[in-house]
């Protein structure tokens, strides 16, 4: 459809798109050869000019991040590819791994050349079966061809790439949790500074980038920063993969230029809400960002600045669409259970805060809450933001505060009725019906 712009996802539909031969037929790996003939500083500069921002959630400018790595370092430098994809509602990296792993490998080669890195690790979430096998096969193919290993592409540049499997812990997606995990420890985040660019994995300067970020690099180097900037907005250039889930007609991954109206994605590309229902709410960037009401969502554009202006964040682009049949208290309860489970426990506000939130929201959902609970939740979330080692604490607090603030009426109805008002038309039955429509 017209709204889509397929730069990173252009090969998704090709037969056996994950194989080397398919990738090379489409012109793959030519950009790596081109980049290896460029001055590394010029590669970084091109990425800086493109305005590419990290697609893992924080949106940090990629070229600038590479620039933080010291040019001269006594210890080896490393690249960590973040393929841990565990943010609820997010599944776009899985598509990039399953359908175009060679594009990622090419991005790794170019990035490593630009920063002067000879060892890269791809940290893949442990639950991934097919994406892991496809990626491993692609890495093996690239080694067999001499694209990886000593004298990459016949140049003097050596690059080793190792796939490292995680084992089920959301916190290992956080960059320093990932580093700890890669070192063979529990994935408990580190206090920053020092930032990974200065002291990262194995004591060396380390670039941590998301799969989608690195997958965008070949296109940028091939076509130039100006061409990339011709998509998206002035401050949010380029395209972004959105993974859309929930009761829309066509859930899935869509690559669109940043700045696209949210309505276009939900109502045109995804075909709107199933069964002719209305959207009640929208979580645009993965479960950790503040929720939008229908009105807010319908007025928002999908770029970093517009979503910030709407009081939320672009995050990972994992959009969860919520329809009118959904109980918002139940939905929040599910999210709070997740964060309480995933807190690594190092910081008191996070360990205790996520546990309290889980308990309070679950009690409200069951009809056992009191009118003071909503304010209690808001006061707890206040103390959880900006007080901890990593931002998992904020990631739990922000949705909680936004749900309670924007859908307070639903929380109050639970207290007033002493039960979930949606249970008379139970969510269970609603959801079961929805399945039958499908």
């Amino acid at each position, binding site marked *: 459809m017209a709204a889509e712009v397929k730069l990173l996802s252009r090969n998704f539909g090709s037969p056996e798109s994950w194989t080397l031969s398919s990738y090379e037929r489409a012109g793959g790996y030519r950009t790596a050869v081109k980049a290896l003939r460029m001055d590394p500083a010029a590669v970084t500069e091109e990425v800086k000019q493109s305005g590419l921002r990290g697609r893992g959630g924080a949106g940090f400018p990629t070229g600038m991040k590479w620039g933080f790595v010291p040019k001269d370092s006594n210890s080896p430098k490393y690249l960590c590819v973040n393929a841990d994809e565990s943010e*609820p509602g*997010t599944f776009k990296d899985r598509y990039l791994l399953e359908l175009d792993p060679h594009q990622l490998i090419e991005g790794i080669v170019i990035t490593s050349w630009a920063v002067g890195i000879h060892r890269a690790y791809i940290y893949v979430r442990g639950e991934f079966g097919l994406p892991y096998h496809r990626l491993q096969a692609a890495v093996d193919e690239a080694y067999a061809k001499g694209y990886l290993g000593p004298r990459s592409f016949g140049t003097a540049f050596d690059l080793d790439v190792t796939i*490292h*499997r995680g084992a089920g812990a959301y916190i290992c997606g956080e960059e320093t949790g990932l580093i700890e995990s890669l070192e*063979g420890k529990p994935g408990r985040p580190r206090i920053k500074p020092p930032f990974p660019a200065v002291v990262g994995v*194995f004591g060396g300067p380390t670039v941590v980038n998301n799969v989608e970020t690195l997958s965008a690099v070949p296109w940028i180097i091939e076509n130039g920063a100006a061409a990339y900037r011709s998509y998206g907005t002035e401050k949010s250039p380029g395209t972004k993969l959105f993974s859309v889930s*929930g009761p829309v007609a066509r859930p899935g991954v869509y690559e669109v230029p940043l700045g696209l109206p949210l309505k276009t994605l939900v109502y045109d590309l995804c075909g709107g809400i199933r069964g002719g229902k209305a959207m009640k709410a929208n979580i645009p960037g993965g479960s950790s960002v503040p929720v939008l009401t229908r009105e807010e969502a319908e007025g928002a554009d999908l770029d970093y600045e517009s979503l910030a202006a709407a009081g939320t964040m672009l995050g990972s682009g994992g959009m969860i669409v919520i329809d009118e049949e959904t109980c918002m208290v139940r939905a929040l309860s599910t999210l709070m259970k*997740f964060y309480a489970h995933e807190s690594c426990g190092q910081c008191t506000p996070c360990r205790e805060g996520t546990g309290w939130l889980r308990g309070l929201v679950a009690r409200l959902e069951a009809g056992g809450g009191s009118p003071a609970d909503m304010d209690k939740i808001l006061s707890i979330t206040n103390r959880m933001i900006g007080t901890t080692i990593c931002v998992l604490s904020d990631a739990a607090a922000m949705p909680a505060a936004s749900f309670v603030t924007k859908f307070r009426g639903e929380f109050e109805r639970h207290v007033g009725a002493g039960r979930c008002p949606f249970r008379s038309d139970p969510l*269970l039955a609603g*959801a079961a019906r929805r399945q039958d429509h499908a």
Partner: protein
Amino acid sequence: MQPFERSDPAHDPTLRDPCPLRRLGHPLAFSAEEEDRIERLLSRYPTREAAILPMLWMIQDRHGWIPEEAVSLVAERCGVPPSHAYGVVSFYTMFRREPGGRHQLQICTNLSCQLMGAEHLLDCLRRRLGIGPGETAADGLFTLNEVECLAACEMAPVVQVDDEFHGPLDDRGLGELLDGLRARAAKEGRI
């Protein structure tokens, strides 16, 4: 070798379930092929310690779970105290410290799946298997667990069978999936 504190036997599955390999009288050891892989593994990292996760995966891929004595074996190879290796095993939810069924069924009940009927699907699973999350069916074919978002939300509601995603599933689809797995096991003479 027990340098770490032992917990209450009633709550510690590794104490309740003695390692079947030990029971069979086989000392747990790596095969020659595994020894090769370990050598290659160790060459990929600047520290031995970094090979802990991949080595634990090797063990789990072979045995289906991680017996307690394997943890000591890994610790020894990686040059860390067993307590450290045990701390790693217990931090990560995917490392299983007790044997389970032949197939691992993981149902996602996070938000996108919940919106599409995961609770109902979990009820169907309970009914069809006669077990709840955390339990293994009497015939030893299935272990059921409830998990968080599997990054497969477009297939919601999703069930992961071993390392494959299946969805969207309704009760009928679930029945077909389970029947297929049972038929395969019967053909292979497992039940």
